[in-house]
Structures are given as C-alpha cells and as structure tokens.
C-alpha cells in the first residue's frame, strides 16, 4: 500500500475528481491524503492549467510524499497542443515540465473523460464496447451498446482502471487510457514514501 502524504487532484469537475479518487483509493491511497481541487467557475481547461501550475509550485516547497495529478480534456485540440499549453503555464512560473516520475502528472483523455468512462464502465460490466477517441461522447451521447454514464459510475470506473495492466491492455482499450495508466503507475511510485 503506497504511503502518500498528499496528492492534489486538479480536475474540471466532480466527475473527473470522483474517477481520479476511485483509481487512487483502489491503489491503496488513504482517501484523506487526496485533496480534490475541482473547477469552481469559468472556463474549465484554463482553470485546470493554471491551478496545476500553482500546485506544482507548492509541490516544489513541500515535496516529500506529495504529488499533483491533473485531468484535462483534450477537447479536440490535439494532445501535443494541450501539453504545450500546460507546459507554457509551468514555464511561465519557472517550473520543471510535466513528469509523472517526479510527481507532476497530467492525464489527457481524448476527446474527453466520457470516452474513458464509457469504455471502463462497459469493461467493468463485462459487456465490452468500441469507442472512438475522435467522437465527443459528451455531446453526442453514449456509444452504441452503452448506457448514459451516471455520477455513481465514475468512482467504479476509476477502480476498474486500476485493475488493468497497462503493459497488456485489453483489446479495444483507448490508447490514451493505456498511456494514462502507465503515467499513473509511475506517478504512484514517485509519490510513495
């Protein structure tokens, strides 16, 4: 069980936070060690980028057993573009770039978190579905064969992600989810004392 003093989870809203906490708690992190910072107002992605940089700056001061984990929708802007935007905020504050191995982890679902939630929920229910990372399921509704995601599905989806092996992902697992799982494993290793 990882002994973590604090993980700051920066997200666009409660659903992302619930998903992230579901993963972390399944990985053995004490729920009280997770501080969730979900967006309060205004543009979600701008808020996450700015807040991530603020929390990384704090991390520099209090680093032991601490980490910052952000979830940010790619929103069709391109992974590279989104990463550059985040790096820009870090650079502006004179901070080191994103690195899960050093406790600064960024997860970027394409197009948005719903892609992951739909796939993981179906996988958890042993009724696999196909998802396309190009489709915006938040706007278009659930993929074929899936029910609309409910709030109470988010935490179990995080738990289901923890149960996956990122070195041998199941067939049809969205590539960005596999990549995120690799980042999460590295992140947990980095922040465990």
């Amino acid at each position: 069980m990882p002994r973590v003093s604090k993980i700051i989870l920066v997200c666009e809203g409660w659903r992302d936070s619930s998903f992230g906490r579901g993963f972390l708690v399944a990985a053995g992190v004490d729920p009280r060690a997770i501080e969730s910072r979900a967006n309060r107002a205004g543009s979600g992605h701008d808020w996450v980028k700015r807040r991530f940089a603020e929390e990384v700056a704090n991390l520099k001061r209090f680093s032991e057993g601490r980490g910052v984990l952000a979830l940010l929708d790619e929103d069709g802007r391109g992974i590279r573009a989104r990463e550059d935007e985040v790096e820009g905020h870090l650079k502006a504050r004179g901070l080191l770039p994103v690195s899960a191995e050093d406790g600064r982890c960024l997860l970027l679902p394409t197009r948005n978190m719903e892609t992951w939630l739909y796939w993981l929920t179906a996988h958890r229910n042993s009724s696999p579905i196909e998802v396309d990372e190009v489709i915006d399921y938040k706007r278009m509704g659930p993929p074929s064969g899936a029910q609309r995601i409910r709030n109470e599905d988010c935490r179990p989806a995080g738990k289901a992600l923890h149960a996956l092996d990122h070195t041998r992902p199941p067939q049809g697992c969205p590539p960005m989810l596999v990549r995120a799982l690799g980042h999460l494993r590295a992140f947990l290793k980095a922040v465990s004392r």
Partner: protein
Amino acid sequence: MLPSTLGQTPPIRQASFGLGREDRGLPGRTGPTTMRVMFVRCYADNFRCFSGLTLPLGPLSLFVGANGSGKSSVVHLLASLRDFILGRAKSLDLFPPRTLTRWDKRIEQTFELGLKLVQGEYAYRLRIRHEAPERALNKVVEERLTLDGKPLFTSDDQRVELYNDRHQRKAELLPDWHISGISRVEERRENTKLIAFRRTLETTLVLAPNPGLVKAVSAEEQPVTIPKPDGSDFAGWLREIVTSDALARQDAEQALAKGELPGFRLFQAVPSGDAKILECIFHGGPPPPKFRLDELSYGQIVLIILETALAVAGQHGGVLILDEPGNFLGLSEIEPILTRLQDAALEGRFQVILTAHHPIAVDFLAAGYGLWLEREPTGPARVHPIKLAEGALEGEPNLRVSDLIARGWLSSLGVRSPAETPAPG
C-alpha cells in the same frame, strides 16, 4: 370529490431529479443521479424570517449567508415539519406564536414540502392558525398530502379524509387540532403510498451538533430512533443503532477507526443502574483505554456524531440535514467529511442539505451547490442560487467564494439577480 381548497394553492413545482451542476446551469461537470428520495422544495410563509419563501432543494444544497439570514431557520423548519408529520410533538410545541414573523400581522402560517420518491412526487401542505397568540393557542386548520396531484390525505379543522393508494376516499375521522393526522394513520395494505411518505421522514436526520450538551448516559425508556438536532441524546440513539442497525454501527466504527479518530476501536454501552453509559474503546493496554463519550474533546464528539449520521444515512438512504458541520472540527477534518457528503449526494446514496459559514465548506461547495440567503435586518429572507458568472474571477486567480462573501462582493459577482431567479410555484 376533493375539498375545494385543493385547487386554490399553487401546485408544488416539478423539480428535476438531476439537479447537478450542469442541470442548474452551473459550471463544472456532474450529471444526473439516481437518487430515490429527495426533498425538492420547501415553502414557508409567516414563519420566523420567511415570508412566502420557497427553498429549492437539490441532491446537494449548501445554504450560505450572513448571521441572521435564515440558515438555521431552514434547519429548524425542516426538523419541525418532520417532527410534526411523525407525531413526535404537537403544533403548540413546534410552531409556537414566537415563530410567527414579527412584522407580519397575519395569524396563519403555511408550510409546504415537496418530496420525490419512486412512487412519484408528494406535496405536503400544512396551515396553522394562531387563534390567540397571547395564550399560545394554535390549531391545524389544513393538512393535506397528495401524490402527483392526487389526494392521499386531507383535513381541515372539522374533518379528516383518508384516501387509499388508488386515491379513493376510504375513511372520515375527527381531527385533532394539534397533532398531525398523517402521524395517526395506521399502516394498512391499501395505504402504502402514504406510509412511504412517512417512512421517508423517519429516515430524515437533522443535526446541529452541540457537543457541550451531549451526554454519555442514556436512560431513555423509549428508544431514540431519531436523535435531537443538538445531539444531546446521541448516546441513546447509538444504543438504539447498536441493537437495531448493526451494519450502520459497524460502518461508523470502521470509519472512525480508519480515519478521523486515530486509535479508536469501538463503542460500548455499559449498564449503570437503569441507564447505560456510552464508552469509546481505543487501542492500547491491556486493559484497553476507555473514555466516556462526554470525556472526549468537542471536536471528537462532533466527529463521532457525523460519522454515525453518515453511516446511518448510507445504510438507509433518505435525507441528511446538517447545520454547520464544520464547527468544532480541525481544519484537516472538514474537507474529507465534505467530500464524502458530496460523493454520497451526487452518487444518489442520500440527499444532503447543509448550512455553513466555514470558508472551507463555502469554497468547496458553494460555487456548485450554494444557495445564498440574505435579508434586511427586519425584512424577509430571500434565497438565490449562487452562480459564478463565466469569467467572474478572471484576473483574480486566488480569489475564493469565501473571499467574495467576506468582501461583500458576492451579490455583484456571483449571485444571480432576483430577476433571474425562477419565480416560486
């Protein structure tokens, strides 16, 4: 044939089940819940500082406002309605003349409660007339309950009419002017819908813990199935939970042991004459250290009450109403409790209604689930959903909702104007 008064009052507004952030047009990302029990609306007229005030309620509602704005009156109102409908007290005790609005000369109080269950949407209405306020005399002049607009129970000061599940009038009784007729209805096969309403109120917990009043000794002859809001009879309630609700007790003990009360193991009720003393056993020893409940710190007592309430609500669903849950808690203890309350509400496990002054609670929940109460010193309370306008905090990245309140900026920056607020009814 229904009493003619049924058509004279505005119908209780249908409210969406999915009152998450998105559904209320608020920022952030939440979706619909599958909550099976939910207060959707509460209305009070001529009650304390409420004059024709409708409180819209969602799966998670946080009432925020200055001192005297009516936050605790919300809690008092919901507790009083629950206790009246369940027959736990009389109208004279729950709605004495001093609860009449001071600047209002009318002698009638009106209350309405909208409740959504799997059976449909219930609308409860109560009117109390203070015939002789100087002699503390009042009587119930109307009490009625409908389900999706169809009657289940109606009464005035002359007669009581009881309907079956198919909304057919089945019995006529004499009213008691001070006790809820609904509380007197016997459970039968044909009135399951009315009983479901009453049962829901039995699972409505209202707590405004005052640890200074909490006693370790419970000598109640009657089981404490619903605790007093101040938690003074908590020992008796836990004693009841221990015997009738073992899973909730276990959940509470495990939550305390794992988290907020390091070293805690379990509760123990020790006989002492006719009474029992509630002790908390900690790891250590032998013998293991034991403390009477009232020997613990105020913060620890409040944590125990909150954890027990969370466990009971988690087992039974229903509604959990907390007045200032952050009081007495350490700074690091508030957010984990709020997170669990938020999760429970948004995942549809039980409804949560809170009031708070504490900046941690305000910053954590107000932007998504806040309801701002405000009033002139001798004027009626008004309520507005807190909505931070897009870009309201741009250029002020470190400004929080609690800062807005402290600076008196919330009205201009973060609250909808009254014109934008949906009209009641």
